C-alpha cells in the first residue's frame, strides 16, 4: 500500500458560535471526508469550543467556500500538511 501523502491538504479551525453553526459543521462532516483533530469527533462539537479538522486537497476549496457562504469565520492552521510534515523533522542531528 502506498504511503498516504498529504499534498495540499489543509487543517482548518472554526469556533461555532451557536447550535446552528454546530449543525452546519456536522452537516459538512456528513458530506465531506473530515478528519477531526480537535475535538476527537463530530459528536463532541459544541458552541464556543474550537474545532480543528483536516480535509483533503480536492475538498479544501469547497470547504472554504461553504464556510464563507455560511459567514463562518475560519482560520487555516496548516495550509499544506505535506510541507508541515517535512518540516516536522527539524532536528538537524538527524
Amino acid at each position: 500500500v502506498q504511503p498516504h501523502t498529504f499534498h495540499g491538504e489543509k487543517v482548518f479551525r472554526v469556533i461555532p458560535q451557536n447550535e446552528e453553526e454546530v449543525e452546519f459543521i456536522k452537516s459538512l462532516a456528513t458530506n465531506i471526508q473530515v478528519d477531526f483533530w480537535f475535538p476527537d469527533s463530530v459528536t463532541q462539537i459544541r458552541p464556543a469550543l474550537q474545532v480543528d479538522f483536516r480535509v483533503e486537497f480536492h475538498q479544501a476549496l469547497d470547504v472554504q467556500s461553504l464556510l464563507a457562504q455560511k459567514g463562518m469565520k475560519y482560520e487555516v492552521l496548516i495550509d499544506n500538511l505535506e510541507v508541515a510534515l517535512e518540516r516536522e523533522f527539524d532536528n538537524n542531528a538527524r
Partner: protein
Amino acid sequence: AIGYNYEKYNNWDMIAAWTASIAAENPELVSRSQIGTSYEGRPMYLLKVGKSGSNKNAIFMDCGFHAREWISPAFCQWFVKEAVNNYGIDSEITNLLNNLDFYILPVLNIDGYVYTWTNNRMWRKTRSKNANSSCIGTDPNRNFNAGWCTVGASNRPCDDTYCGPAPESEKETKALADFIRSKHSVIKAYLTIHSYSQMLLFPYSYKNSVTKDHTELNSLAKAAVSQLNSLYNTRYTYGSGAATIYLAAGGSDDWAYDLGIKYSFTFELRDTGRYGFVLPESQIQPTCQETFLAVKYISNYVLNNP
C-alpha cells in the same frame, strides 16, 4: 542508549531497541518486561524505573495511545532518560527513585504508531480488524470499562472514536488493564500522555458529576500546571475532562480512578493547534522539560500523600 537522540522522533524499531539498551546500561535502576503483544504481534515493553527495594509504591505512566500523537512517546523516552541521568545528582529525583517505582509504557498502540511511520501519518486508532466491516481499528481511549460507549464515542467501526465491540476488546488495552489490576495495590497514580491542546485533565470524562476527590485533584492539577508553566510560560488549562473539554466515555484515566487509583491524570501536551499533531522536533526538548516538572511535582505529592 548512549547516543540515542531524545530530541527527535524515533520509530518503533528504535524505541524497542532503546528499551533494551537503557535497561542493560542501568541495571540498578531500570528493568524491562513485556506485558503482552499488540494485535499484529509486537512486544509491549514496559520499563520499571526505580531503585530496587521492598514495599515501594508506584506510578504508572503510558504514552502512545493515539498513533499520530508523536510527542507522547517522545516524552516517555525523555522521562526515563532524565530520571536515570539525574539519579545520584538531583536530590529530588534520587529521593523519588529510592522511594517510588515508575512503570513506563513507552508506546501502547504500537501497531498504530508503526502505521503512522509507514502508511498514514494521521492514523489514530489501533490496527485490529473489525468483524463485518472493512474499517480498521478501535480508539484505545474509548475501549476501557468506564461508562463504555455511552457518550462521546461511536459504535461504528469506521469512526475515529470507535469504542470497540466490547470493553478491553483490544489486546493492547487488555494487557494494560491486566497489568494495572495485578499491581493496583501499589500503583498510587496513573498518568496517560496524549496531545495536543495543552491540558491537564482528571476524572470524570464519562459523566458530568465530579469525583469525591475533585477538590484535591483540582488543586494538584493547578499546582502541577503552574510548575509546567514556570519554565517557558506554556499555558495549560486543567480540570475534569467533562467540564474542561467534553464528555468522552471509555477513557483509561476514568477506568484507573474507578479501580481505586485516586491520582489519575491525562496530559494533553503541546501545542494548541499551530502544528497540532505535526509538532516539530525542535519543540521536543522544551515540551519534555516542562512536562517533566509537572510529572515530578505530581510524583512528589503522591510520595507524600500515598
